[in-house]
């Protein structure tokens, strides 16, 4: 066996509260990210991701408090993304107890921030977000391999609202070269659709970089996680709603991966 495929639940956090609910029955406060993190820790999640979608920059103290309280009780790697723009932002999160920071918009407007954080704290803590959308709307769901724009994706920033004109694969290469330790590749076409990952996007990037790729966006079933690895060549799979709404457990995800012959953790240890 080799290194296990990581199953990573992602929680959207705004103003210190989880935005989408989780239906774990034993939670004291289902809106508290720390309670949910503890539940995922008990369930044997391989890592956890908090995405801070708080609109205003003034509320940074709130997410730092959430991270601090989570790190006291959860003993698995924690990635925090959303609003990380500088070495100082990264330092504050790491000191609060995050293990990695995910950087999205700032990596496009100021790619040097990736290099600065990697140099200061090591590449292992730098996750570069690659939020990508197929160039042509028409191709988004057809998967037509013969189309002229097939195999091309554009980087979007600001939560997928703003196109940048930057080619996704080129951006992935830039992030790797600047020192990112891994890439979080999210399909803007698939995000929220439950239609499965954009496997061609995932594979195109994973096959062309030496660092691990986390597949994200569109998971509706545990089989989508399996395909993210077998066909998307991802090293890790991230999902939100299937776990939060109890459609699948972490153990279901591990079982599905293992049943497909992939390395996954075999028990909550």
């Amino acid at each position, binding site marked *: 066996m*080799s290194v296990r495929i990581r199953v990573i639940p992602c929680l959207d956090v705004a103003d210190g509260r989880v935005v989408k609910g989780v239906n774990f029955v034993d939670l004291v406060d289902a809106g508290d990210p720390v309670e949910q993190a503890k539940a995922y820790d008990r369930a044997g999640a391989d890592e956890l991701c908090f995405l801070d979608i708080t609109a205003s920059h003034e509320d940074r103290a709130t997410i730092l408090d959430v991270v601090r309280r989570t790190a006291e009780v959860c003993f698995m790697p924690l990635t925090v993304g959303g609003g990380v723009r500088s070495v100082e932002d990264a330092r504050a999160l790491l000191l609060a107890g995050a293990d990695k920071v995910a950087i999205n918009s700032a990596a496009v407007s100021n790619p040097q921030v990736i290099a600065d954080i990697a140099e200061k704290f090591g590449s*292992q803590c730098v996750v570069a977000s690659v939020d990508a959308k197929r160039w042509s709307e028409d191709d988004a769901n057809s998967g037509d391999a013969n189309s002229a724009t097939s195999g091309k994706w554009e980087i979007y920033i600001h939560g997928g609202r703003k196109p940048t004109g930057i080619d996704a694969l080129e951006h992935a290469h830039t992030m790797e070269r600047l020192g990112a*330790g891994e890439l979080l590749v999210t399909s803007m076409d698939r995000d929220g659709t439950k239609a499965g990952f954009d496997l061609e996007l995932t594979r195109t990037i994973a096959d062309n970089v030496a660092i*691990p790729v986390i597949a994200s966006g569109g998971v509706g079933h545990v089989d989508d996680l399996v395909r993210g690895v077998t066909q998307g060549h991802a090293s890790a799979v991230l999902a939100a709603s299937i776990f939060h709404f109890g459609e699948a457990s972490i153990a279901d995800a591990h079982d599905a991966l293992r049943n497909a012959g992939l390395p996954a953790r075999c028990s909550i240890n």
Partner: protein
Amino acid sequence: MSICAEKIALIDYGAGNLHSVYNALKAAGAHSVEVTHDAHYIAAADRIILPGVGAFGACKDALFAIDGMIDALEQSVRGGAIPFLGICVGMQLLADTGVEHGMHKGLGWIKGNVRAFDPSETIKIPHMGWNEIRLSKHHPLAGNGLLLSGEAYFLHGYKFDALDESDIIARTHHGGTVTAAVGKDNILGVQFHPEKSQHYGISFLARFLQWRP
């Protein structure tokens, strides 16, 4: 001395994951953990833990730059047989040399070198994620229950090649065999992150806190 009364020194040399290790030691039952760069405190500690994330050279420089630190460690760990645990880069620093961003000398407590993974099409670098802990058959620390077989969380781009096979307590696999834990007398080093390895890691730390080499 009971575990409650023991003074545990967690060496602060600027490594980023101090608080995670601190929290994990608390969860493992430690009462008195001091995050410190005070060589006097370290010289008087009952157990010493050297954490580490980041690059070998930068960590080594930061550690060696602390006034009196290396003398205190040499006296306590090598001279005084105080239980010592190095984690990740903290384990790698036990080696003679490391070649991350240039050639650097380590503590030289466990014979070996730290080098990059061999380039390969089939593995991703860094080695990131949960992987198997496979115990060596003959190492005493593998036989005494201090380290158990199981799965633990790894995160590293360089690996420890031990010159003396008998110093290897456990191995894992990533594009080839990778040293997962080394040990000699009262000196223990783990490549994985116990503070990020859920129950496996916390229970290991609890056993380290009870360990009488």
